[in-house]
Structures are given as structure tokens and as C-alpha cells.
């Protein structure tokens, strides 16, 4: 069918990240947690962390939101353990590079978000988990 065209945004790696549900859920006794809402689209992310000497020992997230937000939270959960606030800021630069807000090439796993670059209205979906984690760490 000619109108049956694949969606450019939902590439296999983004879908796989979201479906991996890495880190999805709650921590039994988090050191800190924070919730962030995106008032424009209604996405909501809650992040729990336990900290060891300022570094993330465990991380979990609950996402009430779209696939991009879920995928981003999963990518963050894959990479956050062992990092402190500045280490997380580095990951965020990677995400910003993937969506074209910063120059340079993003690394795995955030390079999966490169297809989002041309969809400006969806950038916040990728960044919302970072915002929640920043709040949790501050």
C-alpha cells in the first residue's frame, strides 16, 4: 500500500529502549526522589535514587508519558549508576547532542535519539527524565 510508510521517528533502537523498561519502577528506600511534569503534554516522570558518597548507587523511574520519555528514562537508568551530578550533566550533553541542540556526536545509548532532532515539539520528552534526575540530585 502506497500510503503505508514507516514512521521515521520510531526507529527500532528507541522502541527497544522503551520496551526494555530498564530501571522502571520504584526503589524500596530511595535517598532522594523527584517528580517532573511537562505541563504542555502532560508527561510525568518520577525518579528515585540511592546515593553513595554523592554517586548514584541505584536508580528507578516511573514514567507516565510517551515512548520517547520512556526510552530516555531507560537510557538514563542504563548509564547513571556510579555517576554524580556532574557525571549526569555529561550524559545530558550527550542527549542534547543527539537531538541537535548541541554540536557534536552523541554516544551510545543516547545516539539512539538522533531521529528526534527534526521533531522539535518532542525534544522535551527526551529531556524530562534528566530534569527529574537533576531535581533529585540537587
Amino acid at each position, binding site marked *: 500500500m502506497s500510503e503505508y510508510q514507516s*514512521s521515521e*521517528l520510531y526507529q527500532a533502537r528507541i522502541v527497544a529502549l522503551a520496551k526494555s523498561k530498564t530501571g522502571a519502577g520504584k526503589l524500596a528506600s530511595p535517598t532522594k526522589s523527584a517528580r517532573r511534569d511537562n505541563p504542555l503534554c*502532560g508527561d510525568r516522570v518520577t525518579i528515585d535514587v540511592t546515593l553513595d558518597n554523592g554517586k548514584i548507587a541505584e536508580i528507578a523511574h516511573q514514567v507516565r508519558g510517551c515512548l520517547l520519555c520512556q526510552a530516555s528514562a531507560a537510557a538514563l537508568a542504563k548509564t547513571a549508576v556510579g555517576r554524580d551530578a556532574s557525571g549526569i550533566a555529561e550524559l545530558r550533553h550527550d542527549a542534547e547532542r543527539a537531538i541537535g541542540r548541541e554540536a557534536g556526536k552523541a554516544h551510545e545509548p543516547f545516539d539512539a535519539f538522533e531521529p528526534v532532532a527534526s521533531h522539535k515539539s518532542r525534544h522535551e520528552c527526551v529531556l524530562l527524565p534528566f530534569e527529574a534526575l537533576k531535581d533529585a540530585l540537587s
Partner: protein
Amino acid sequence: MTFDIAKVRRQFPILSEIIDGRPVHYLDNGASAQTPLAVIDAVRSYETTSRANVLRGVHRLAERATELYENARADVARFLGVEPMEIVFTGGCTAAINLVAYSYGPLLKRGDRVLISELEHHSNIVPWQLLRQRSGIELDMLPVTTDGQIDLGALSKMLTSETRLISLAHVSNVTGALLDVRKVVEAAKAVGAKVMLDGAQRAPHGPLDLKALGVDFYVFAGHKAYGPNGIGVLWARPELLDAMPPFHGGGSMIGRVTLAETTWAPPPRRFEAGTPPIGPAIGLGAACNWMAALDWTATHEHEMGLVQRVLDGLQKIDGTQILGPASLQNRYPVVSFLLDGVHPHDVAQTLDSFGVAVRAGHHCAQPLMDRFDLDGTTRVSIAPYNDNSDIDVLLTGVRHAATTLR
């Protein structure tokens, strides 16, 4: 008369746009409808042959502009079945509701009650919350039934002798549910309350007879009714407009200004301070005439046939759920649905890659989303120019989202 879809579509140039190799399947009419040549021509004609300010000049262009502006008021009045001097032009539907809250609000006193519903658009909730803060009125909310209609069964319980105003959506922008206005007006009369209808989603589907409806205030937006942006309408009974103080102060709305005191112009000018949106008003007049020229029995049948096609098609896709009346009874052509396991934004984004424009999210109706414990829905909203192919590509896109995203 019958409904000639090809003829209707020809009047909307945007429908023949090709974007990224795909035709436009525009099913986001509830957010903003497209505009026909008749409207574009009317605005262009004003801008190129009659542009001037209104009411203030003696020169010929000013006279032409004033005449076109007042003709537009008459066109809108005819569309609503009321008198021109009862029509107030505003900046939009939200602006019209705020005008009522600010100008009718002062006639209410502490302890008076305003009744709205759980399915209202934020623009029919927040102005009343602000009024509550300003003047201590109480706000009540009618509940919503499981199929997304305002539960009028609760009316008798929620109406009190302190209820002064009932303000409800004529058609829900989320569920498409059509309000049983007669029931509301009867119940309101029994306690002496006024009735305001938010007609944002009703006005785009044909002329109205507000006198027969028996309501007291009616508001709608130009851009959802095939008109320009930046224009909206408030209609109110003349005795209400007469009693209401102005909201905005400025030029055009005064009788006489001295330092000590200013007297107000009579309605509608009392409520149109400053230079009004002249071109948009003229465009809206043309849009009302364009709508009035359609055969609405046939047009409504066409629109509701498309709704049936959406409902039938969605039902065949595993894990879909309609938020709203399941049949064509009591509804207008707005359909909200859920696709199990796929977020509405991802459904809408997938549809965009098929060239289908729909809206996803909370639709500025968060209390309704809370009522159903939802983050949002995907909403299909239909206009006379939509056709079977729009719906068929929509359904193909939803099937694609269902197979790839879950």
C-alpha cells in the same frame, strides 16, 4: 440541495497541499479548522480596498471599513438567530468567556454559585476560579458519565437557590458529547439561574437558533468555525449586556469621558474597547455566510457518516477504546480514543508520518482526564471537507502504531 464534497473541498486551497510527498489529511479541526476562499477573499478585499479604522473617521475608507465591520456583526447575528446589537466581537472564545466572568461577574455576590462540569475546557473553568478568588463566589462541577457526557441526572442535586449561572460546553471538545440544552434551561429556570453555552465545538457545524435554545449567553471562536484567528464572539441577551459594566476601558467604549467620570457606551461597543480585530471580524462574517449556505441536513449526515467510519474502523483494531458516546446519538464529529499500550502522543506522531493531522494530549481538559485517570487521548475532529480517504489513512496509521509501538 445535497452535499457535494468535491465542491466543498475545492474551496479550501490547503487541502491540495502536498507535504513531504503526502496529501494533507486534516483531522484536527477541533483545534483550528481550515479556511475557505470565501473568507480569504473577504479579508483580502477589506485589506486591499477598504482598510481603515472603524467608527472614528469621516473619510470614505473609514466609512467602508465601518460598514464591513457592522455587516459582519449582522452576518454573525443571522448565523446565531439573534440581533446584531447583541453580538460582541472579542479576541477569541477564551476572551469571550473571560469577558462574561469580568463583566457579568460583578453582578454576582459572595456566596452565589456558578455551575460548570467536569468536562469543560480550561477556558470555561479557570475564569470562574479567578472570579471565585476575586469575589468569593462558589464553584460547583457537574460529574461526567462513563461515556463522556455531562451527567444531567445530577442537575437537581447540584442546583441551589444560590446558583446564578450554569456554564457548559454545548459540544465537548474531547468526547464530542452534545449537551441536552433543553434539560439544562428548564432546570436553570426553576432556580432562576442564567445559562451560558461554550459553543466552540458546536458553531463549526451549522447555524444556530439561540432564541429557540433559550440560553442567556453563547460564545465561540472564529478560527474553529472556518474564520480567521484573533476573533471570537459573545452573544448575550440585551438586558444582560445592558446591566453589565465594561471589562476593558479605552476608546470606542465610552459615552463621555471627563477626569471625574466616564459614562459607558451602550452594548456592544461598551465591550469593544480600542480598535477591534476588524479584518478577522469581516472574515468571520464571511465564514458564517459560508456555513449558512451549506445544506446542513446533508452536511451533518456526511460528517456523522465519517464518525461512523472512524468508530467502526477503530473497533476492528485490537485494544482501542472510545472515550465518548458509543453511537451517533447525542454526539458531534469529535472522537477521542485510546490505543492500549501506546501513548496518545506516539499515536499522533505516527499518524503525522502518514500525513494525518490529529491532536493528542489532555485537550485543555485536565479535570476530565483525571476523571478517567488518563494522561490524554488521541482526538479526531471532523469538518465538512473531510472525506473517506482521510478516515481510511487514519485507520491505516492507527493499525501501524498498534503493530510497531507495542
